[in-house]
């Protein structure tokens, strides 16, 4: 055998093995097992902080696990290898089956076997008038959805071709789902933004707090929509075991599809995102933004705004800072905002309920150099106090003012706004994936629920002149109801070849 022939033979063997049922089964098991570590180890995609934590806690095993992609299982080459092989196998399996099925769809039901009495469902009777019975039965069965073929003294029928059609449709739909997911993540974008009441957001990269584009994403495809957060609402359970559990929250926004279009009012809720220009805007979080007025020693306003505070617990004990760089010396504030204030020895100032029932700020005020000119970027949520001195501690209710000692100025707690955070996604593959999923369900239902059956009728005239009519059938699948269905067919047949009852 020449080398070429050997290679061809080997390639054929490979292909046949890859597309065999046994391999498909093996790859399915492999896929199930391969997914398990993805649920047991923290994953970068969903919880990057936990991955960092895990690596810190397990300095020995962590890096090793990381080498094997245990922290991004579903994006790992070996996971991809399994499902790509599975889908190659699937294609190799489905294509030839489609050809066979195509031929089958145009073929005739097979002739009756010799001995109908051996079939799982069987009825027979004697008749004395079978004129036109073959044609009559063929027509009647055909009306019941069977494909029929007739001979001189027999009818052959088959039904349930939709089963195989459904099976092929289902496997094809799986391929489509995969393609839709892949193209959606390559062309799509994900981002988050935090917006205070009264402020807005416009859909361009610079306005996002975080932004993750897909591999094939192109900036020019970003729709120029924008929105303004008018009001945020939240309600919580009051009393009972689940005291403080969130019950309802939503954000009222004014939306523009394009800079020139008219604003319209929309409510964004959990489970009810804003759908706009192919993107979706989800309400994912919220918090408080206390408002302050800071004055310098001369009584001039050096800062007046709301500051975003970040919640630290379920009751929205929130922390944040205010930096007033325009006063001399510069003023900085570190503060807690407590929607329902309480203080105790162990926890210090904290909130006991998420809604603002008794709002209060606890703050420490610093003067000196905020360090903003040093060139290194600073977090807006942290105060660098290395070159500052603490001038005082105070707690304020809304409307109250703290006069800094030695006439250095004042801080007024004016009130508070709320902020909401939004996740904004654009996934052009989403609709395709859903459509393919629906196809998969339809295909699967046909494939598993439609019975594939064969039935025959035969008329035999024996030498003594009696005419025997036999109806029998078998099921090519394991769906229930064969006997009932065959006896229905027999009942229809009896109207064309009436049974001779005893005593006639």
């Amino acid at each position: 055998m020449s080398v070429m022939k050997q290679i061809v033979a080997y390639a054929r063997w490979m292909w046949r093995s890859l597309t065999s049922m046994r391999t498909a089964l093996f790859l399915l098991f492999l896929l199930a097992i391969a997914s398990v570590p993805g649920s047991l180890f923290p994953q970068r995609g969903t919880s990057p902080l936990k991955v960092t934590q895990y690596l810190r806690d397990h300095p020995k095993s962590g890096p090793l696990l990381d080498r094997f992609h245990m922290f991004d299982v579903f994006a790992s080459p070996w996971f991809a290898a399994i499902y790509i092989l599975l889908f190659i196998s699937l294609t190799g399996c489905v294509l030839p089956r489609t050809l066979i099925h195509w031929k089958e769809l145009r073929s005739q039901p097979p002739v009756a076997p010799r001995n109908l009495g051996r079939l799982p469902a069987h009825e027979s009777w004697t008749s004395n008038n079978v004129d036109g019975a073959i044609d009559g039965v063929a027509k009647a069965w055909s009306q019941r959805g069977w494909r029929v073929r007739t001979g001189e003294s027999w009818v052959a029928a088959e039904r349930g071709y939709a089963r195989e059609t459904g099976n092929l449709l289902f496997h094809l739909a799986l391929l489509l789902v995969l393609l839709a997911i892949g193209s959606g993540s390559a062309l799509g974008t994900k981002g988050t933004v935090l917006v205070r009441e009264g402020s807005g957001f416009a859909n361009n990269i610079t306005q996002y707090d975080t932004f993750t584009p897909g591999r094939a994403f192109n900036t020019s495809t970003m729709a120029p929509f924008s929105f303004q957060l008018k009001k945020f609402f939240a309600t919580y359970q009051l009393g009972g075991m689940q005291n403080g559990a969130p019950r309802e929250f939503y954000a009222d926004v004014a939306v523009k599809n394009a800079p020139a279009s008219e604003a319209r009012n929309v409510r964004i809720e959990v489970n009810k995102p804003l759908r706009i220009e192919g993107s979706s805007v989800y309400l994912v979080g919220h918090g408080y933004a206390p408002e302050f007025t800071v004055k310098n020693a001369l009584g001039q306003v050096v800062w007046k705004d709301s500051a975003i505070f970040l919640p630290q617990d379920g009751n929205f004990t929130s922390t944040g800072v205010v930096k007033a760089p325009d006063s001399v010396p510069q003023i900085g504030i570190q503060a807690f905002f407590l929607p329902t204030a309480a203080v105790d020895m162990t926890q210090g100032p904290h909130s006991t309920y998420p809604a603002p029932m008794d709002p209060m700020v606890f703050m420490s005020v610093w003067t000196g150099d905020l360090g903003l000119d040093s060139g290194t970027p600073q977090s807006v949520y942290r105060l660098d106090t290395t070159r500052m001195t603490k001038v005082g501690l105070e707690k304020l209710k809304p409307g109250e003012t703290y006069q800094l000692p030695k006439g250095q100025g004042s801080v007024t707690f004016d009130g508070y706004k709320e902020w909401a955070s939004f996740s904004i996604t654009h996934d052009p593959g989403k609709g395709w994936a859903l459509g393919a999923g629906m196809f998969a369900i339809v295909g699967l239902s046909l494939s598993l629920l439609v019975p594939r059956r064969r039935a025959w009728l035969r008329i035999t005239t024996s030498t003594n002149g009696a005419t025997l009519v036999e109806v029998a059938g078998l099921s090519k699948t394991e769906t229930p109801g064969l006997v009932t269905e065959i006896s229905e067919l027999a009942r229809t047949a009896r109207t064309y070849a009436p049974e001779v009852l005893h005593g006639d």
Partner: protein
Amino acid sequence: MAINESLAQASNIMVYGAMTTLTGAMGAFAISLAKGRRIETLEESAERATSASHQVRMGSTATLDRPAVSTAIVTEDGRGEGRRAGNIGMSLTWLSAIFTGAAIIFRGLSAHRLPWGNMYEFSIAAGFGVLIAYCVMSLKRDLRWLGMFIVMPVLLDLGLAITVLYTESAQLVPALNSYWLAIHVTAAMVCLGSFAIGAALSVLYLVAERVESNIANGEAPGRLGPLAQRLPSSDRLDLMAYRIHAFMFPLWTFAVIAGSIWAEAAWGRYWGWDPKETWAFITWVIYAAYLHARATVGWRGRKAAFVAIAGFAAIMFNYFIVNMFVSGLHSYSGLN
């Protein structure tokens, strides 16, 4: 809206009621298993014959030269005590289904919402799912022999629910407040109930198959002999298990898709490999493998039964281990 405490109370009483009747049903089914016999109807034996010959026919066009069906074993009808006990068990199971159904309705009315928002409520709903699936299936055929293997796990489930998983009636956190979630959970509950029965049938298949092969090899039936005697043939058990799985797999596929539609609306992505989602996927793949296994030479029968049982084990893992010990977005156990 406030919680109606007396309705919540009534719901709990219904759960205790169901546990009482289930205990009774368990006793009755035990007696019926010990004393009864079952019969196989004509339709059943014909179908069993179809199934037995299916293996021969796979892939090729029908080969029809095989023994006549009339040799199918038809055991005698159960008489007297065993039969009566079986009937009592069946009635008590119906009653338990009604009690759990009422528990669900009262719970829902007490909080003015669909009552599946935490693990306690899921467990009651799952118990109801199993009972009602069993009762409905028993309308068309004699399933008294299966009763014991249905009521026992449900009793365990309700017991676990009311002791370990119990959560006061309350309103939902906003993320759970969606009709897609209601559709998703309802479909998943129906599947869970049916897959539980499928798994029970697969275990019983393994029992019957073992005893039958012992007998075929000329050995003693073994310790499981007396149990196998009360069961249908292994072929029939295999067929019943297959039908349940085949019938429910499209619904399970739908349940997963409905879940991802909800996830898209709630979290901005339809699939994110959250542990809960990952295990739903694993379960789906295992059941797909089961359906494949039954069409693969050398995998039908015992190996396929193990795959079906593995599928249910994955559901249980997702329900108990992932809900309680693996943190993810799906945090609704209501336990802390």
